[in-house]
């Protein structure tokens, strides 16, 4: 009940935040040098052609009028038309967002679980060889550029070992997967398409692995630091002094207390990953949200840039809401 009320309040608070984001992006993208109309016209286009194109996309109107139109569209779910492709932004984004979200959600989930297990393992062996090895490995993984790591993985796991399908696309077209959400794995489950599921999962292995290696280090460090703090705390030592067995200590007195700080950091990592999957998408020909947003920005495709920024902001808002609720569930002292 309390959580429902908290969620409702936070969602209401998100409305002005998103509105602010819309205003700022709307203005910024128009202030930036560059003209979207010039990019779609040929080199021989006349000034009259440009004016006609401008009128077609409503760019000849005064800025406030454009904004009011855009805002009106936003409330009816119309995000405008891409200047580059002439397609509906909503339709393009629906195809693009699913695959990227799937990639990021799976990668962050695996990284969080891995960070929890390894972080606690590492903290319990603090100062020993295993702890040092793990921390160095995590740091190395964190320091590798995604695109390079992705290429190396393709070279070794696909070309060398042949364990995974080729890094071209997200699912084998022969499996006839029908598109529902855009997230292929989810669509395969929803349609009960076994072969498509296997194919999509196979294609996910390398990009997910790349992202996990890159983002697991900060999460693990956080868990390890919290776990060390708990291990040194009076409360934990008191439980140990009362002779409780290792398993009880680990499950009841260490794990939950050590995870208290993880949700906030995981949310940050998640939000960061949404906007920065573009390199991984390029390497694995993922055709995802990151690539689409980047291309929109490069060609000053106003509706695309606006839509992608709003979606990223929305993702941040939602994921931090989830993180706060999880934090409150983990730590009974937090009141939401």
């Amino acid at each position, binding site marked *: 009940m*309390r959580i429902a*009320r908290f969620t409702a309040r936070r969602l209401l608070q998100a409305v002005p935040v998103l509105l602010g984001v819309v205003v700022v992006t709307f203005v910024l993208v128009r202030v930036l040098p560059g003209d979207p109309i010039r990019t779609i016209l040929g080199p021989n286009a006349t000034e009259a052609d440009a004016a006609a194109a401008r009128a077609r996309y409503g760019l000849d109107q005064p800025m406030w009028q454009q904004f009011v139109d855009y805002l009106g569209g936003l409330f009816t779910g119309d995000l405008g038309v891409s200047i580059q492709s002439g397609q509906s932004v909503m339709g393009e984004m629906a195809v693009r967002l699913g695959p990227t979200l799937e990639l990021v959600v799976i990668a962050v989930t695996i990284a969080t679980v891995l960070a929890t297990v390894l972080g606690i393992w590492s903290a319990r062996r603090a100062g020993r060889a295993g702890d040092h090895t793990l921390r160095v490995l995590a740091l190395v993984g964190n320091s590798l550029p995604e695109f390079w790591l992705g290429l190396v993985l393709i070279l070794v796991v696909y070309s060398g070992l042949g364990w995974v399908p080729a890094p071209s696309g997200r699912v084998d077209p022969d499996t006839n997967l029908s598109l529902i959400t855009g997230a292929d794995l989810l669509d395969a489950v929803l349609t009960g398409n076994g072969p498509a599921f296997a194919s999509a999962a196979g294609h996910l292995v390398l990009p997910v692995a790349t992202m996990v290696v890159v983002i697991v280090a900060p999460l693990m460090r956080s868990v390890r630091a919290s776990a060390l703090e708990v291990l040194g*705390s*009076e*409360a*934990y*030592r*008191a*439980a*140990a*002094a*009362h*002779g*409780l*067995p290792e398993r*009880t200590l680990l499950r*009841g*007195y260490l794990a*939950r*207390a050590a995870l*208290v700080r993880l949700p906030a950091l995981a949310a940050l990592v998640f939000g960061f990953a949404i906007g920065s999957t573009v390199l991984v998408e390029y390497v694995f020909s993922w055709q995802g949200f990151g690539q689409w947003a980047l291309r929109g920005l490069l060609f000053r495709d106003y509706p695309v840039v606006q839509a992608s920024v709003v979606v990223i902001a929305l993702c941040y808002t939602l994921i931090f809401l989830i993180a706060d609720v999880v934090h409150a569930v*983990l*730590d*009974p*002292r937090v*009141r939401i």
Partner: protein
Amino acid sequence: MTLLDIRDLKVAIGSVQALAGVDLTVARGEVVGLVGESGGGKSMIARSVVGLLPDGARATGQVLFEDRDVLTMDAATLAAHRGAGAAICFQNPRGALSPTRVIGRQLTDRLVTHQGMDASQARSAAVGLFESVGIRSAARRFGSYPHELSGGQAQRVMISLATGCAPGLLIADEPTTGLDVTLTREILLRFREAADEEGRGVLLISHDLASIARICDRLVVLNAGAIVEHGPTTAILTTPAAPYTRTLLAAVPTLPSPHPAESGESAGSADPARPAGAGVSAESGDPAQPAGSAVSGDEVVRVEDAHVVYGSRFGAGGHHALRGVSLTVRAGETVGVVGESGSGKSTLARLMLGMITPSRGAVTLAGREPSRLRGRALRALRRRAQLVFQDPIGSLSPRRTVADAVAEPLRAAGVKAPERARRVAAVLERMGLDGTYAERRPHELSGGQAQRVGIARALAGEPDLIVFDEPTSALDVTVQAQILKVIGEVTAERGRGSVFISHDLATVRGFCDRVVVLYLGRIVEEGPVEEVFARPRHPYTMALLAAVPSLDGEEETGRVRLTKDPEEAAAGGGCALAPRCPFAEDACRTEEQELRTLGRARVACRRAGALPDLEGPER
């Protein structure tokens, strides 16, 4: 066979000899008190018994537990010994309870591990155990987290955790530090029960000889890692052999110790703990003096009918911390505020400092109302009042030097650097801290030194009002005496008003002019300190006085004892104390009690002055 037999235990950490040859025995059914100042090695003994010495500690000698040496046990034997053999009841129960696990589960973990119960057995046993240590509505409390408990309840839970291990030996490390007098007595009785009824050996560790003496069979006095004296409790209390023991005994603040300035006056009322003789006749003999007019300096702070409600974050409910308190402090006056935990003492302090706004009523500090001021003016006003905190080390920033900390109020007041340095040096000097302390950081200070720094910081800005919030309850008894002396000097100055908050009545008596007794956010009695202590008229004051530990070691009959916990006494109509009061009548439960003048004091009890003879039966 003795349960615990420590022979010539020496512990060294690096080059520091923490324990230098300690011999100690505890038998089943026996309560042994281990007394000494902090840093004396008491906790080191406790930790060696469960094999949890700090890293880098080297121990020699023997710690025989049922004839097996703990120091040489292998990991598996040691794991079995911890909890089932010896279980520690930790100091600071709030810190020692795991914050992310409900207390019921923490107890069932122990029951399952050491008593081999299954989950459902353990659950019902846990509820029973909670009840036996005095936790009300134990079944509901089962699902509580430690931060939802009061200090007294947390200590009870800690005891239940230790006894839930079914240990042969129960070690209690400072089990009553920071608890108020009524709770201290209650908690200590639990340990006596553990020895008498469950046949456990109990090792009770404390710096406070007075509070534990009456339940111990034997006492062991430890100083600087060595035992200076041991023997039966009465022998040590009556004929202490070692000079150190005599120092400890002398440091105990006891109620009959007279007010330094008024020794002649209070000598007449020989024993304030037994107020039976002081009836109406003695009152009328007093020079008729209106309450609280001993000092006639300027008014420093005035609290008028203040109510404070701490709302819960989601509207409904809330905690009514103060319910209509009026209090005036004048320059040159020291007012003592006493009451159990949860009576609203700290709220009153925060109110006077302008840190919270009353939900009803008004506060005037140095002639202005903090609730009407904003920004710069409010900050300037707040500088007129300073606070001395309960936790001396915790209230100093670990990263700043002593000089920095003391200069803080001056910096806030915009005093220039050279002037600041001069005043800091002067105020530190006054606190008996020489120049070498100025560059130290809090971890290099002892508790007593840190509290001197805290007082210096409060004094530096030359405020009109200093509030001492239990300044000595975290300190050793011997240090307490020194700090109280310093505070006595500070409060004796004419130009300033002081408020001294304490649950320890003996300390208040030392130097306060007036005393205010708070109970559940209401003033139940106020008046000149010698009057209230010599002739307490409210049953609550009587009970507080009766609960003060004394060294005679005997349970006196005829003392007033409150029957239940404050949290249990749900506020219905009428007098808030009625559910706990041994004198309550039906009328008490329906009539609101107002403060009325009785002699030189004011009391909120309709039966005050006409209470039955205290030699009568309790309860």
